[in-house]
């Protein structure tokens, strides 16, 4: 005989807790890597200290050289583009796809000679991880899209669960209260105030790949373009897709292998006059035309301007037809998700709120585990230990693995072949080592000790990042170049926060694990 059906609140609580915990393990990593992706260009600059920015705009010779180089690198129909110097990235880059991976060459804006910089995965490592969790561009993207949808469900279910206490307890935070209460306060404080941001991120993030996940969304795109998008997903990473212009790529079969016969300098001068303050940001060259795309920095809306020029004569072609409403909406949502249209302070807010989102999920998942632990006090079950280890790896190991990439960038010899892949390998290896260590700590009943050690290592790695930077080629913030100082300072602050947490946990470890104290004595 079955008992009474569980109430709506109990069902909702289950929906918030269990899928929330499982999805949260991935979402914490997605939020942390997404926060770092907000400054991917700046991180890449930090990781290439050899590059010295020049205030001079690119000369006609440098632009022509970039055009020829792009044609060389995109032989055989491969995709590529020229990224023009701008306020965020002062380098003239030729970006192309090499065996499915993103590759680039930096040119001097004065005369177009190739600037020798170290090969690095740069900020794109974090972007790619945020995008598809290193699980392949089809499965990984589908998984992140599914997680985005799950996040909306989890947020809405949590909102309904806390609806009654939402306003009275909006600003309530009691770190000194009993453990469960304190974690719940922290979870709610980080969740409720930033709820519009999380919903915006989840929704817009899901819609970036909506055509794969919701088949109806791509209905207005031409069938040939849809076919190309499905058959060649790796092209997303060739550069154009990264900048939110995936809806306006050169048509299939046109890209690659064509040097511009017309002068790029005169084309860009014309484009600059029409694009106004933000100016041109990227150039793509197809068989018959040269497309100039507006730089990031325009407000979200119909999207940045794109101008097409004849490849041979350099004459401006008719303005491309306006995109349909679906494509415009998609591009606006993509711009909102990436935040590249925003000013620097707002991008910092994106970064901080992304980290707050990871903290919110970690607090909620800790609360989930505390409840399960209290329910199973006598039986320390394997799933519970596993859950503790995975949470530790996700929330504690991920920041350490990210910092390890910064360290690897400076410690791996600059001239080594395949060092970009090595940086990725370091990221994966450190994270895997964290998983093994967390499993060991969780199954030996010393979870807090595991947290403490991870925080200690993260703290040390972050605090010493400025020292590493200065010792290995970083620059002091002179001549308005604050990128190195900003990355160092961010690492330092994160390291200090992690050390503070480690010191707090150190006190708790003694209280919870008297056995350890006895051993120490």
């Amino acid at each position, binding site marked *: 005989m079955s008992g009474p059906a569980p109430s709506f609140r109990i069902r909702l609580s289950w929906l918030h807790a269990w899928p929330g915990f499982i999805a949260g393990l991935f979402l914490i990593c997605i939020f942390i890597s997404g926060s770092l992706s907000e400054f991917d260009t700046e991180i890449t600059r930090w990781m290439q200290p050899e590059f010295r920015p020049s205030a001079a705009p690119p000369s006609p010779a440098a632009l022509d050289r970039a055009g020829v180089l792009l044609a060389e690198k995109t032989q055989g129909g491969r995709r590529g583009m020229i990224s023009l110097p701008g306020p965020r990235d002062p380098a003239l880059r030729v970006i192309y796809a090499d065996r499915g991976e993103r590759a680039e060459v930096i040119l001097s804006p004065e005369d177009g000679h190739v600037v020798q910089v170290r090969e690095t995965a740069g900020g794109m490592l974090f972007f790619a991880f945020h995008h598809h969790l290193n699980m392949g561009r089809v499965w990984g993207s589908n998984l992140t899209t599914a997680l985005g949808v799950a996040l909306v469900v989890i947020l809405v279910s949590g909102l309904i669960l806390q609806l009654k206490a939402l306003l009275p*307890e*909006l600003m*309530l935070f009691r770190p000194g209260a009993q453990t469960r209460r304190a974690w719940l306060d922290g979870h709610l404080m980080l969740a409720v*105030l930033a709820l519009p941001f999380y919903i915006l991120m989840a929704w817009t993030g899901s819609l970036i790949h909506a055509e794969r996940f919701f088949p109806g969304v791509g209905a207005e795109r031409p069938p040939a373009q849809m076919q190309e998008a499905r058959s060649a997903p790796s092209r997303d990473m060739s550069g154009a897709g990264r900048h939110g212009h995936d809806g306006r790529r050169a048509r299939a079969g046109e890209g690659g292998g064509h040097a511009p016969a017309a002068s790029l300098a005169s084309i860009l001068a014309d484009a600059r006059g029409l694009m106004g303050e933000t100016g041109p940001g990227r150039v793509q060259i197809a068989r018959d035309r040269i497309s100039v795309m507006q730089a990031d920095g325009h407000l979200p809306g119909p999207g940045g301007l794109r101008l097409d020029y004849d490849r041979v004569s350099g004459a401006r072609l008719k303005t491309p037809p306006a995109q349909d409403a679906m494509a415009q909406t998609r591009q606006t949502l993509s711009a909102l998700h990436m935040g590249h249209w925003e000013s620097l302070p707002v991008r910092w807010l994106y970064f901080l709120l992304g980290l707050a989102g990871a903290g919110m999920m970690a607090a909620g998942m800790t609360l989930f585990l505390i409840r399960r632990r209290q329910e199973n006090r006598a039986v320390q079950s394997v799933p519970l230990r596993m859950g503790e280890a995975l949470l530790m790896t996700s929330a504690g190991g991920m920041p350490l693995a990210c910092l390890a990439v910064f360290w690897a960038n400076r410690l791996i010899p600059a001239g080594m072949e395949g060092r970009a892949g090595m940086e990725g390998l370091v990221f994966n290896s450190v994270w895997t080592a964290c998983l093994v260590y967390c499993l060991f700590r969780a199954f030996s009943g010393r979870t807090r000790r595991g947290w403490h050690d991870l925080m200690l290592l993260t703290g040390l790695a972050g605090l010493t990042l400025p020292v590493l930077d200065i010792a290995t080629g970083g620059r002091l913030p002179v001549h308005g170049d604050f990128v190195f100082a900003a990355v160092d300072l961010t690492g330092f602050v994160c390291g200090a926060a992690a050390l503070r947490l480690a010191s707090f946990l150190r006190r708790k470890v003694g209280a919870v694990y008297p056995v350890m104290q006895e051993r120490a004595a």
Partner: protein
Amino acid sequence: MILLPCIALWALALLCHAALQKNFQRRRAWIPGRHMRIVLRMARGAAIIAALTLCLACEGAAGIVTWCLAAPAGGIPVSLYLGLRTPVARQMG
């Protein structure tokens, strides 16, 4: 540069909101009078509307995003400040 004033207005609004809550008043043994409550309510509403107006006036429709982002940026530090400044013994109540 409207972000800073917007964050400050949100912080003010949320501080007033916190001061109007019973748990806040109980933990500080402070009961605002009728006039004070009216002032707090008016300040809370006015600060939120002023922040929204400022964002919309300076950035148009995109100002909505800035306004939404400024809420946690103003609220979380205030919440942390209030939480960490309250004596532990009073947090139990």
